[in-house]
């Protein structure tokens, strides 16, 4: 969805100004997160920390979707495949190898890259709709296989995953300690966000934007779009897998549900509601929808209908999403001063 970079009619503000509004909103997100942490610590309730951490973890998955959808122009409907993969591999590593966070992440990164490569080779040859459906199908098929595999716990999944202790030289903290883990994941997401934003200012990242805008012309400029799309796909798979790797550390278990379409779908919803192509929009979207689900969920089990309806309204009336509208509005506000 290319509308993010299309700002408005005349006069045309420069693209840099819009990006600085997005940057400001990114800082705002993390500032608000820290504020939230302070409040939650004061309230002393672990539940909020865990919920917020979960929203960040799924936010990471949403970031991977935004890289593909918002930038490269590919709609993935099965990204949960890599998320769940990362979760399972992480759980297995923590349980059977060693309860070490860096080890789990390293194993997930390597295996995720391989799996992403295989998935990418299958899916990238397809364009548009076909890509979406192949990605959907891949996730359906693999999740069904996992669901039926006794060695992986079948429908119950894997439980009893130990929470590793992270030592950073001077200090060490237990990931089972909710506030510490929240801060760790927050830092991780901040780093990821910074990385992604920086990536889009490299020739590689700009190629992705170009592919989304006019793939056809690129071959005539001397580039092979296929390679870039594959690289983007693998990178997105890695991001999704690494995010998933954090899940068992938070909850102590993994289950096939993590690969189900629900998760893929929610990731896409997070991105669209938050603001396609803005990256930080994915995090905002995830936070918003996690909060909404929690609130609605306390009244009824049917939060899906509320979220679904919100999404439908968003697609029809606010296709640019939260950040997609806020950023230009902020920019206009600033340019008036």
């Amino acid at each position, binding site marked *: 969805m290319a509308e993010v970079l299309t700002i408005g009619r005349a006069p045309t503000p420069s693209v840099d100004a819009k990006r600085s509004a997005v940057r400001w909103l990114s800082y705002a997100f993390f500032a608000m997160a820290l504020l939230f942490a302070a409040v939650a610590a004061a309230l002393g309730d672990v539940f909020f920390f865990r919920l917020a951490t979960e929203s960040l973890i799924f936010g990471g998955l949403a970031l991977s979707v935004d890289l593909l959808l918002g930038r490269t122009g590919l709609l993935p409907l099965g990204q949960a495949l890599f998320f769940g993969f990362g979760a399972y591999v992480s759980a297995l590593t923590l349980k059977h190898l060693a309860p070490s966070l860096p080890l789990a992440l390293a194993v997930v990164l390597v295996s995720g890259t391989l799996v992403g490569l295989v998935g990418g080779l299958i899916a990238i040859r397809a364009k*548009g709709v076909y890509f979406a459906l192949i990605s959907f199908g891949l996730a359906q098929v693999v999740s069904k296989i996992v669901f039926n595999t006794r060695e992986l716990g079948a429908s119950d999944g894997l439980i009893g995953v130990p929470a590793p202790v992270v030592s950073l030289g001077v200090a060490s903290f237990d990931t089972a300690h909710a506030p510490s883990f929240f801060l760790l994941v927050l830092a991780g997401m901040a780093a990821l966000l910074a990385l992604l934003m920086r990536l889009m200012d490299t020739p590689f990242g700009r190629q992705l934007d170009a592919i989304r805008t006019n793939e056809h012309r690129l071959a005539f400029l001397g580039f092979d779009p296929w390679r870039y799309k594959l690289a983007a796909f693998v990178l997105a798979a890695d991001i999704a897998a690494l995010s998933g790797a954090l899940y068992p550390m938070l909850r102590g278990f993994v289950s096939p549900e993590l690969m189900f379409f629900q998760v893929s779908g929610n990731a896409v919803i997070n991105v669209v509601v938050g603001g396609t192509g803005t990256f930080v929009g994915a995090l905002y979207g995830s936070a918003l929808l996690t909060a909404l689900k929690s609130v609605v969920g306390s009244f009824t089990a049917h939060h*899906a209908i509320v979220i679904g309806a919100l999404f439908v309204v968003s697609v029809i009336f606010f*296709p640019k999403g939260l950040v997609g509208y806020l950023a230009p509005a902020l920019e206009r506000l600033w340019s008036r001063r």
Partner: protein
Amino acid sequence: MLDWLQFVLAPQVVNGLSIGVAVVLMALGLTIIFGLLDVINMAHGEFYAIGAYAALALIGVGLPFWWALALTPLLMAAVGYATERALIQRVFHSKDRHTLTLLLTFGIAIVLEDILKIVFGANPLRIEQPITGATEMFGLFFPNYRLFLMAVGAVVIAAVWLVVFRTRLGAMVRAAAFDRHMAASLGVPVSVVYAGTFAFGVALAGLSGVLLAPIYSVFPTMGRDFVLIAFSVVIIGGMGSIKGAVIAGLLLTQVQSISSLVISPVWSDPLLFGIMVLVLMWRPHGLFGRLGHG
């Protein structure tokens, strides 16, 4: 050998055919919606499920199955028409139409599935088979309901083909699909045609749901499971190709049916999916797909 053919293979083939016609109906709806509206209907599975539930509800208030079979497609057509006019047409004119309609129908699917859960509960329900017993042919017993299913399916498929290719209505619809503005200037009521086409596709999904309800059980996520095979059929057959939907639909269900003799059902979906991927690699537009679509 002959025995194996007669007592093992043949029943599977017949089985496959009976499911096959229902799959073809579903795929036809999907491919018509895509071919004529350029819309990927991610909610198609949910309309299939609603069809089954609608039949269930009608039977629940005392109507015989035959009434449910006749009324449900009409109900579904109304639902489809309303959906298209109220929701889909709103994003139709956007430059990002393909992505937006995909996302929109995907959102609609989520909402519809949850509505089904709310209204009917999450537990599987059953519809009694309206025709019981079996007929003996060639030394085998074929369940009557399945024979009936094949007959109804075949008739409807033939009717669809006739309408699309041999009637003025069909010509009008194809004209509108080909060139909206030209069709409009020729007096074709384009908005109505679009909504009507969507309604028609949805009705076919609903009909499929009713027909298969007595065979499979009825549960809120039945649509999502079933839509993958429908999409596979449409993609393999070629998006927008009616001939493709019929041939691919019948072939794939045969593959599924016969392969169930040697592999466990868990591998059935992966097999179909694998075939879809291979076909896409060899012929990116499907077997009978036309360039310029998808």
